[in-house]
């Protein structure tokens, strides 16, 4: 599958899109990158006079690449004609290093299982020096959009 197809299928837009590029994807794993721009809206308040990327945003980035992009890839061919939505169901992430404005991160996600529309993955985020920023497990449900809407 073309990596662009995945990016174009994402249900997000600015200022809440945290995927720049998919580097590789297979049935077992995905790898993608994102660069946190200096002028991202959350740096204004997190923290006052000391901009640092919020953990929830790092988690969101890990989920967008590791779960949603991966899910779009894994779904292809099965429910391509139906619109699907994604719901985060649980996260358990440990954080090790801060991410400052302008940093480029990569996210690697390995499938634990994908069954009954639930995708559970082991996900880690690395910085440009390949140091672990955060790692843990994330799972989500792929829901078919209600047709009556």
């Amino acid at each position, binding site marked *: 599958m073309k990596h662009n197809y995945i990016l174009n299928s994402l249900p997000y837009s600015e200022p809440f899109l945290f995927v720049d590029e998919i580097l590789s994807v297979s049935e077992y794993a995905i790898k993608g990158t994102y660069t946190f721009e200096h002028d991202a809206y959350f740096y204004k308040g997190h923290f006052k006079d000391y901009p640092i990327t919020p953990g929830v945003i790092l988690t969101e980035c890990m989920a967008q690449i590791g779960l949603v992009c991966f899910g779009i890839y894994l779904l292809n061919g099965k429910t391509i004609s139906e619109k699907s939505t994604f719901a985060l*169901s*649980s996260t358990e992430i440990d954080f090790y290093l801060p991410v400052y404005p302008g940093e480029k991160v990569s996210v690697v996600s390995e499938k634990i*299982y994908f*069954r*009954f*529309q*639930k995708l559970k993955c082991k996900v880690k985020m690395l910085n440009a020096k390949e140091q672990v920023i955060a790692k843990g497990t994330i*799972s*989500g*449900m792929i829901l078919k959009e209600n047709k009556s809407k």
Partner: protein
Amino acid sequence: MNSEEIYRLLEPIIKTYLPEDISAKEINRNSDLTRELNINSAHLVDIVLDIEDVFNIEFKNEDMESLRNVNDAISLIQQKISG
């Protein structure tokens, strides 16, 4: 395995995924897993995966669709272990 024996193995699995505001005493054979026991769809998948391990069986997507209450789970398990 009769339905009583299945229930004894099934109850602790369900208990694991109950939200805090639901007491384990509320589990009975007619309990609707999502509506009454408040188990979300993601944890329903976890329950099914645990059932597969404990009973050494495999659920299909259509089994998932017919799974509403504890009795449904028991009869699906019964079908599969005898099948």
